[in-house]
C-alpha cells in the first residue's frame, strides 16, 4: 500500500481516550480537499455504514458527500448495513435515507445496500437500495465486481452461493461488503470470529481484495490479512466515540467523528480517502492489486 502524497491531518486515533467530546463550538471544519487521482475510466464510488439515524450528523455527512460529488463524481454508494434504525414507517425511510442523501439521489447516484441487524430484511424490496429483492447479490462495474452479503444470516446456502460467484468472477478487483466486521479492534462489539472462521477461507481462496464492513461505529483500516484489506466504516450516521483500542493490527483508526469514504479503482490501483463530517481527511492511500502483481 502506498500513501498518497498530500499529507493528512493528524488523527486523534487511539490516543484520545481521556479527551472530552468536542462541543459544537469547538468543532473545527476543514476545506474539503480531495486526493483521488480521477483517472479516466476509473470506477468511482463512496462507502457509508450505520447511517440510518435521521440525526443531524447523518445529514451533515450527506451534505459533505454531495459537495465531494461535485468534484469527484462517484456513480454509486455502498451501504454497509443498519440503513434504517428504529421504526420503519415511510416517514422513517424519508428522514433516515431519502432526505439526507436527496442531492445525491436527485443527481442519479445509485445506492447499493447490504443488511445490518437493525434492518428489516424486507428492505431488500426497497427499490432505492437496489437489492432487487435479494439478501445477497453482485454488481459489476468496469473492472470491479462487488459482492453484497447478508452477514446477519450467513447460512450454508449463502456460503455456497458466495463460493460459486467468487470463483466464477474474472474481475480484476473483487470487493465484498457486508455489516459485521471479520476484524475490528473496537471495544463495543469486536470482530465476529465465528463469521470470520466460515467466510474468510472463501474470500482468501477466491482472490478477494477488499472487504468493507460496518457495525462498529468507528473507522478502521486493518493491516492486510493475507492479501485482503479490511475496512470498518460504521460511523456515517452513528458514532461510538473513543471506542477504539490501541491494537497492533490497526493500520489507521478514527473514532471521534462521523466518516464516509471515497474510492476509485483505476487499472492496477485502488485509491481511497476517508473524510470526517467536518471535512478532515482522516485516512488515504492507494492499494496495489496483489493478484495482478503476481501475474506480471
Amino acid at each position, binding site marked *: 500500500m502506498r500513501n498518497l502524497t498530500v499529507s493528512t491531518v493528524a488523527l486523534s486515533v487511539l490516543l484520545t481516550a481521556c479527551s472530552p467530546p468536542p462541543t459544537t463550538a469547538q468543532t473545527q471544519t476543514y476545506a474539503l480537499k480531495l486526493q483521488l487521482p480521477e483517472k479516466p475510466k476509473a470506477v468511482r464510488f463512496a462507502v457509508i455504514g450505520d447511517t440510518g439515524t435521521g440525526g443531524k450528523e447523518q445529514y451533515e455527512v450527506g451534505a459533505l458527500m454531495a459537495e465531494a460529488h461535485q468534484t469527484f463524481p462517484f456513480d454509486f454508494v455502498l451501504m454497509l448495513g443498519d440503513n434504517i434504525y428504529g*421504526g420503519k414507517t*415511510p416517514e422513517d425511510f424519508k428522514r433516515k435515507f431519502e432526505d439526507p442523501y436527496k442531492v445525491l439521489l436527485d443527481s442519479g447516484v445509485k445506492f447499493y445496500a447490504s443488511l445490518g441487524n437493525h434492518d428489516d430484511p*424486507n428492505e431488500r424490496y426497497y*427499490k432505492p437500495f437496489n437489492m432487487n429483492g435479494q439478501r445477497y447479490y453482485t454488481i459489476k462495474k468496469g473492472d470491479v465486481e462487488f459482492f453484497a452479503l447478508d452477514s446477519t444470516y450467513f447460512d*450454508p446456502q449463502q456460503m455456497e452461493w458466495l463460493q460459486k460467484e467468487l470463483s466464477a468472477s474474472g474481475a480484476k478487483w473483487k470487493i465484498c461488503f457486508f455489516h459485521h466486521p471479520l476484524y475490528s479492534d473496537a471495544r463495543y462489539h*469486536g470482530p*465476529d470470529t*465465528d463469521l470470520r*472462521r*466460515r467466510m474468510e477461507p472463501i474470500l482468501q481462496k477466491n482472490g478477494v481484495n477488499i472487504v468493507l464492513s460496518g457495525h462498529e461505529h468507528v473507522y478502521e483500516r486493518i493491516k492486510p490479512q493475507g492479501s485482503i484489506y479490511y475496512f470498518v466504516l460504521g460511523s456515517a450516521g452513528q458514532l461510538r466515540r473513543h471506542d477504539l483500542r490501541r491494537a497492533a493490527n490497526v493500520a489507521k483508526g478514527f473514532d471521534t467523528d462521523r466518516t464516509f469514504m471515497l474510492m476509485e479503482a483505476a487499472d492496477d490501483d485502488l485509491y481511497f480517502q476517508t473524510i470526517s463530517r467536518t471535512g478532515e481527511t482522516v485516512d488515504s492511500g492507494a492499494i496495489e492489486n496483489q493478484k495482478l502483481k503476481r501475474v506480471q
Partner: protein
Amino acid sequence: MSRIIQNKAVFYASLLACSVTIAFGQRVNIGAQHIAGFQQRLAAYVKLRNEAAAGMPRQKPTDSSGKMSNQERELAQRIRSLRPSARRGDIFTPEISAEFLRLIRLAWRNPDAAQMRRSLARAEPVSITIHINDAYPASIPLQSMPPTLLQNLPSLPKELEYRVIGHNLVLRDARANLIVDFIERAIP
C-alpha cells in the same frame, strides 16, 4: 464446502446414534423420523402460507416503503387468520425440540462453541417476550445468527429462517415478519 458436508455428516451420524430397537424387532431411526416429521410440518406451513398469499400481488421491488410494509402486514394477517389457534410446539413438537436441544448442546460442546457464543454476544442480543403469530418488532434489532449454529441445524424452506431471541430459538417467516414457533431456552 467440505466443512458443510462434514457438519451435515456429524448431524446425521448423531441422528443415527439415536436409533433404537423397538418392539417387533424393527430398527427405527427415531431421530430421522422426528426430522422427517419436522419437515412435513414445515411443508404444511408453507402450503398454508401459499394459500394466504394467493391473490396478493407478487412482492416486487418498489419505491414505496409504505407499500412494502403494507404487503408484509397483510401477508402476516392472512397467515394469522389461517392459523388462529397456532400454539408453541405446533411445529417444534416436544420430540423435535428435544432433538434440537441435543444438537445445540453438541454444538456448544465442540471447539467452535466459544466463537459462537462471542458471535451471539456481539450481535446485539435482545431479550423480549415473544408470542406465536406476533410480528417481530420493527424497532428492535434482529440478532444475527452464528454461521456455525446455522450449519448444525436442519435446513429450512426459503420462506422461513431461524433466529435467536434471548435464549429462544425462533422459527420466523421472513417475508411476513411473523413468529411461527419457537423453542424456549434452546440457546445456553
